């Protein structure tokens, strides 16, 4: 074997990603149940942050209340664990006070879309520079499995024992209609695709919303007769979604009823902090 070939071989050697540099020492094992997708999403997020090249001190992670909102407890960034549904409001304050920080909001479907729905749509409207990650597991996991705005119609939950009669929210359509300039959807099953989407959302200037479909095997899964976490991942995240790139080429019957995955909307709009600074300069006569 020549020296060149040996070097090429050496470069191929895979070393697992070292998550420990972004995690607080001694905090693992985390609180999430066996099979919960939140851990998979956190790993994708840490890999995306590593690729973005941001320093740990440049990031502020803000969360509300819920299973997903426990994430800031494990990561070694500037972190803030706030009120139920009000994570984006706190994040707005952080961003306005320190515009140089990269603000990442970690929130759940119930936290962002129900309890804090109002805060969510107005943050999207302002287009303030932050990344909002909505972990959508279709249930309120922490409080015992009540139905949430993303629980599919007909699904069982603790508060809908005969099936949920409410139609569910489409988080991405809501964010797009409210004015968010980057809207995407990923799943915990497609970890590497999610990593790429998260990297793009972190690099985007303006409000970026990423809905991440993951699964709650303990409350949603058990009540809806799923056998295991992996079965949920296959049925909901793999078979229940279709890539936005493939959707045009597939026959309509294969796309119908499935959620689109990938970057759904990207636009250039004036960013709130910059507009605010411009206003200050104008008033001061600069």
């Amino acid at each position, binding site marked *: 074997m020549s020296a060149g070939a040996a070097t090429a071989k050496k470069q191929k050697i895979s070393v*697992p990603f070292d998550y420990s540099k972004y995690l607080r020492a001694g905090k693992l094992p985390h609180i999430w149940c066996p*099979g*919960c997708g939140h851990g998979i999403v956190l790993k994708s997020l840490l890999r995306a942050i590593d690729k973005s090249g941001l320093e740990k001190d440049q990031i502020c992670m803000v969360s509300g209340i819920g299973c997903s909102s426990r994430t800031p407890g494990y990561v070694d960034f500037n972190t803030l664990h706030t009120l139920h549904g009000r994570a984006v409001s706190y994040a707005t304050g952080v961003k306005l006070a320190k515009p140089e920080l990269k603000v990442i909001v970690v929130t759940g479907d119930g936290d962002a879309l129900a309890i804090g729905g109002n805060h969510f749509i107005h943050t999207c409207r302002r287009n303030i520079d932050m990344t909002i990650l909505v972990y959508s597991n279709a249930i309120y996991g922490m409080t015992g499995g009540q139905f949430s705005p993303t629980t599919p119609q007909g699904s069982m939950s603790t508060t809908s024992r005969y099936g949920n009669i409410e139609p569910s929210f489409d988080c991405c359509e809501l964010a797009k209609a409210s004015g968010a300039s980057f809207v995407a959807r990923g799943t915990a099953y497609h970890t590497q695709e999610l990593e790429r989407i998260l990297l793009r959302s972190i690099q985007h200037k303006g409000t970026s919303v990423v809905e991440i479909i993951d699964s709650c095997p303990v409350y949603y899964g058990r009540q809806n007769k799923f056998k295991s976490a992996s079965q949920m991942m296959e049925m909901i995240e793999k078979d229940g979604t279709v890539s936005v790139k493939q959707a045009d080429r597939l026959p309509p019957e294969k796309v119908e009823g499935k959620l689109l995955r990938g970057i759904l909307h990207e636009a250039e709009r004036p960013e709130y902090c910059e507009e605010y600074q411009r206003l200050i300069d104008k008033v001061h006569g600069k």
Partner: protein
Amino acid sequence: MTEAAKKLPRIVVHEKLCKGCSICVDFCPTNVLEMKGSIVAVKNLEACTRCQLCDLRCPDFAIQVFD
């Protein structure tokens, strides 16, 4: 096949972190892993293709594949 190609990977399971959800066992394309009680264990290391899917999909930071 050269000696280097035959070299087996090293799969590390952090038993204190594994919660036994069996996601890695179910998604391993070559059936390398198995459940031993409530913890994952390596059954057939020779079949491992180093695809890292177990590492990528483990929610608990509990499994790693070293080349």
